[in-house]
């Protein structure tokens, strides 16, 4: 229980900044059974507490505030209470979008679903602006895709990974698809240029996602094998945007 205080202090300082690369994060060492070193102060990715039953992204330390029963003035801001940190989301987004930057394994430390949900809603909104009301398809394909990738990654890697982390990574790497969908509002993608752009975006998304998965789960020589199912998943999203 003493760890909660540490999480609370580190909530905004848990280095998720672009300049802060290379800090010791969660690295899956295939020679180790999945037990994590003490004193790291980072969230165990296979711990489901942050995902099941609680508000996504809520750090355990912030429970202290609500249990205290303080007055209105002493309550923390709503965003902090919900565990939504826009600065972190922005930093993670920038890291993910750069295809040439080496992946930082600490992205798997926090199960942050706020960014991914925001991107899914934005994708649905851009599709709506293009005249297609496909919110249900976006959510359904995301859910089924996350479960499928979760099962595949657990089968392929020695370390276990939680569904929340998989959803988080896949969601962050969806951003180029949102850009493609926004482009489709103004210019139809059903020609040669559209097909080329769609293929480029699919490659970009799946490269980012597979880079993070393979670095973190110790699947160094199998990045292509992880990239291909990601490409299929993002391909289905591209079909939604194009047609």
């Amino acid at each position: 229980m003493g760890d909660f205080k540490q999480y609370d202090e580190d909530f905004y300082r848990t280095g998720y900044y672009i300049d802060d690369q290379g800090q010791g994060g969660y690295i899956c060492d295939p020679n180790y059974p999945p037990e994590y070193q003490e004193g790291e102060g980072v969230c165990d990715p296979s711990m489901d507490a942050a995902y099941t039953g609680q508000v996504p992204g809520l750090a355990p330390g912030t429970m202290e505030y609500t249990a205290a029963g303080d007055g209105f003035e002493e309550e923390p801001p709503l965003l902090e209470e919900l565990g939504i940190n826009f600065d972190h989301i922005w930093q993670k987004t920038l890291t993910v979008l750069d295809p040439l930057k080496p992946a930082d394994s600490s992205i798997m430390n926090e199960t942050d679903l706020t960014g991914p949900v925001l991107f899914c809603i934005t994708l649905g909104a851009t599709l709506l602006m293009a005249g297609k009301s496909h919110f249900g398809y976006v959510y359904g394909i995301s859910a089924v895709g996350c479960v499928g990738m979760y099962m595949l990654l657990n089968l392929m890697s020695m370390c276990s990974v939680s569904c929340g982390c998989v959803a988080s990574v896949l969601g962050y790497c969806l951003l180029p698809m949102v850009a493609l969908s926004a482009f489709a509002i103004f210019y139809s993608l059903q020609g040669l240029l559209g097909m080329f752009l769609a293929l480029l975006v699919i490659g970009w998304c799946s490269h980012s996602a597979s880079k993070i998965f393979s670095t973190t789960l110790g699947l160094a020589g199998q990045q292509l094998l992880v990239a291909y199912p990601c490409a299929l998943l993002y391909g289905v999203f591209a079909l939604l945007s194009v047609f």
Partner: protein
Amino acid sequence: MSEGNKNTNTEPWGGFDDNLIQRGGSAVIDMENMDDTSGSSFEDVGEMHQRMKDEEEVTAEAAATEEEGGEDGEFLGMKGIKGQLGRQVADEVWRAGKRQASKAFNLYANIDILRPYFDVEPIQVRNRLIESLIPVRMINFPQKVAGELYGPMMLVFTLVAILLHGMKTSGTVIREGTLMGTAIGTCFGYWLGVSSFIYFLAYLCNAQITMLQMLSLLGYGLFSHCVVLFVTYSVHFHSLFYLLWLVFGGLSTLRMVAVLISRTVGQTPRLILCGTLAALHMLFLLYLHFAYHKIVEGILDTLEGPNVPPIQRVARDLPNAITVLNATGKALAAGADAILTQ
């Protein structure tokens, strides 16, 4: 569970420890996979780990039940004993049921038993994809079949994606169901259903092939389907499709047939098994092409032909009508003049 640990070895040197096989920790005793290429021992580690977890769970639950029973009895005193007894019994029944269900679930739905079949390298997958189109001529001894599920599963999903793409470009409308559901159902249904059927026939014909090998063989055979459909959904020519159907479909069928022949003894069993597989494989490709692509052909024929599409409204031929009216008017006028001048 602890009674099963009785040492039945009589040899002074200890004898073989058959705990791993007899303790019922797993339903997989796959002695047929002697020529399996995966070669990993994850199954054993997984079984032992699971057994240890089960034993810990049982002892923890037993301890928890004893503690709770003691506390509640003291708290409620004499009045609550009857209700308390009922509650305890219900609780115990619930726990026993949950334990049984979780054991059954861990036994049959544990995806860890599939772990060795996903342990592949990209280069192996690439080689197997290419080899699936190369029939091997040596049929005198059993040919090796990779016991792997990653490649076949990815090929099935690729086929689903290609079908979806084809349905979208041709504007197919599925009235009862969804495009995605139809595509997934068709592809997975073929892979699992035909594999099971051929495995059943192989069992009847006494062929030496396991279910995993059959799934793997048929799955890799879908590579030809993916290639043919991908090309023909982009380039719409019937003659091209028939050519590719014969070449690629034929090559992958020959490959699968050669493997089955090498593992079957006797002319009639070979004929039955290989004939069935060849027919199903080739006909499936025909079905995929024609069932989901017909509409494009119809539209192209209509647009290119000289006939007016029947749905459109055809404008009336006004110049003719006007000519006729004019002629009638002139005739009437002439007639009226004739009458007036008389």
